């Protein structure tokens, strides 16, 4: 197991350096002089220009600049935003819990709906239940989620008035962020109705964000389940006189979920990409919205730092999923 972990780390570390290289050169690839761009319309006098160049290290050879950047990254220095002048990492960490909260809800929605749908389709294979489930899944998979989000708002918020249109919390509440997770913070605050408000703000973004992963998970669960149901050990389990429910839930599902775990891990990238669109539409103050705004404002340090953090996040989650995979699948755990 430990050897396995080290092997995976050995794969990830060079990739991470590659990403730092990529985002470092990203800024250098931008046409135009970054200092002039930073100075904006007003322009800059030559003395100030040289000063700024020295400040940002642009007068150094490119290799030195990269190593300076790399050293900064390892010390948690991702530069300062052009717009807010605050450290990029601080901004990221402030907004990150909102995205995590939304993503966790999204993936829970995806697993909670996707796995049962997949199992149902597999046991009802070839019937209308199966066809319907798979049609829903394929539609979800093809869904432009920014449109899906608008449809949800149009139907549930503006027509029915059931859910709020945007934001994380009703303006009537003011909650001091302690964990950054609104559901937890509102619970801690003890303010009446705040938790319900936070929850109702989460519903539509969760559905919008979770739909594509849900579709992918449902499809994967179905095919994996079908394969497992044909295995001899399922017949053996039935020959023991176990109830059909126990055969499916204990013997089949555990095995069928092994490949599904990997797929769930791969959804983290999908979730983060989806978070960009979902957060933009629902004015959700997370890193997705933050990055889109940075791109629109051409706030390059923020773009650079944000992309690096997202890449780091995706790689870390994939590593965690690999480890989980090892835990659930004894065949991998015991391999040396």
């Amino acid at each position, binding site marked *: 197991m430990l050897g396995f972990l080290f092997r995976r780390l050995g794969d990830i570390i060079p990739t991470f350096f590659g990403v730092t290289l990529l985002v470092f050169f990203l800024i250098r690839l931008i046409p135009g002089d970054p200092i002039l761009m930073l100075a904006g319309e007003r322009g800059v006098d030559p003395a100030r220009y040289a000063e700024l160049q020295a400040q940002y290290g642009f007068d150094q050879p490119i290799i030195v600049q990269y190593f300076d950047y790399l050293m900064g990254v390892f010390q948690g220095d991702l530069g300062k935003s052009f717009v807010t002048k605050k450290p990029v990492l601080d901004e990221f960490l402030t907004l990150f819990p909102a995205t995590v909260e939304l993503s966790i809800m999204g993936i829970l929605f995806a697993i909670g709906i996707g796995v049962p749908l997949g199992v149902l389709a597999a046991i009802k294979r070839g019937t209308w239940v199966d066809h319907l489930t798979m049609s829903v899944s394929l539609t979800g998979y093809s869904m*432009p989620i920014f449109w899906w989000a*608008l*449809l949800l708002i149009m139907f549930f918020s503006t027509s029915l008035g059931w859910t709020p249109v945007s934001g994380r919390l009703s303006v009537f509440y003011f909650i001091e962020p302690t964990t950054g997770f609104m559901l937890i913070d509102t619970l801690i605050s003890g303010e009446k109705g705040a938790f319900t408000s936070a929850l109702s703000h989460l519903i539509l973004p969760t559905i919008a964000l979770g739909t594509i992963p849900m579709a992918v998970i449902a499809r994967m669960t179905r095919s994996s389940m079908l394969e497992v149901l044909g295995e001899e050990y399922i017949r053996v389990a039935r020959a023991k006189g176990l109830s059909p429910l126990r055969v499916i839930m204990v013997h089949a599902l555990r095995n069928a979920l092994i490949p599904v775990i990997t797929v769930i891990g791969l959804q983290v990238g999908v979730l983060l*990409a989806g978070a960009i669109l979902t957060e933009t539409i629902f004015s959700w103050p997370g890193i997705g919205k933050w*990055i*889109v705004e940075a*791109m629109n404002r051409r706030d390059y340090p923020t773009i650079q730092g944000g992309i690096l953090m*997202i890449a780091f996040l995706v790689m870390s989650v994939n590593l965690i999923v690999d480890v989980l995979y090892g835990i659930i699948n004894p065949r991998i755990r015991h391999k040396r």
Partner: protein
Amino acid sequence: MSENNTPSAAPVTQVADATVEPMGAPPSPLRETWDYFRKNRGAFAGLIVIAIILFLAVTAQWIAPYDPISQDRSAFLKPPIWMEGADPRYILGTDAVGRDILSRLIHGAQLSVSIGVVVVILSMVAGIVLGMVAGYFRGWIEVGIMRLMDIMLALPSLIMAMAIVAILGPGLENAMLAIAIVQLPHYVRLSRASVVSELNKEYVIASQIAGAGHMRQMFVNILPNCMAPLIVQGTLGISSAILDAAALGFLGLGAQPPLPEWGTMLAEAREFVGSAWWVITFPGLSILVTVLAFNLMGDGLRDALDPKMKR
């Protein structure tokens, strides 16, 4: 579905066929694939929808009732004709500046189809070349190329595409280029994997002994044998290209107004989410139907081309 597909399901006709043409040549691979594909109702439906969209795209100039960017100042936000207060000239209604939505959708089909096709061709050609080079020459070239692809895959595709557009500047061409770059790793990985598995086969060794050069080996001998998975990936790539382009358009980084790109149309329509459902519903529905059709066809092609599933 599988019941209809298994050859044993129609034993009587099979036997009859065998007696009519006892030594008949086996069906050509293309024909066999087509027969198989046709039996998959979903894939066939996808193909028909794609044919319709292609037709609309090609003939947009002639069949669209209006110019997609001309504005009728007497008809702002008119609902579709079956609604009260509609303007009978505009079947699906008009948008906030009085443009005919139907015409914009038809012209949007042209844009979306071109985006999908151009992106996939760009990405596939570059990806095949890189992947074949990596798989054929191995060594540090392979390590370098594949490591680069791993780095690109570490980032969610939309974020990567946004970053590229942020460098190149917003616009349709840059968005297409960005999406093509983002899709690259899939083709590189697929073609490399196929080349590596083909490389040790007898026919490759035989033609190497016969003196075939590297270029001939890679592109004449090996490539045709790796095409099946690439075709499937290409079909699915069209759908994700259309989806990503629409997302970029929606975020203001892709096609710019007044171009009738579906995602861009949605971005312009966003503020009417509470008042004019039609300006939001139809562009998104067009994206969904197109993407769904390509996905259905891609799935069908995968099943039809995968020899493991056929037997």
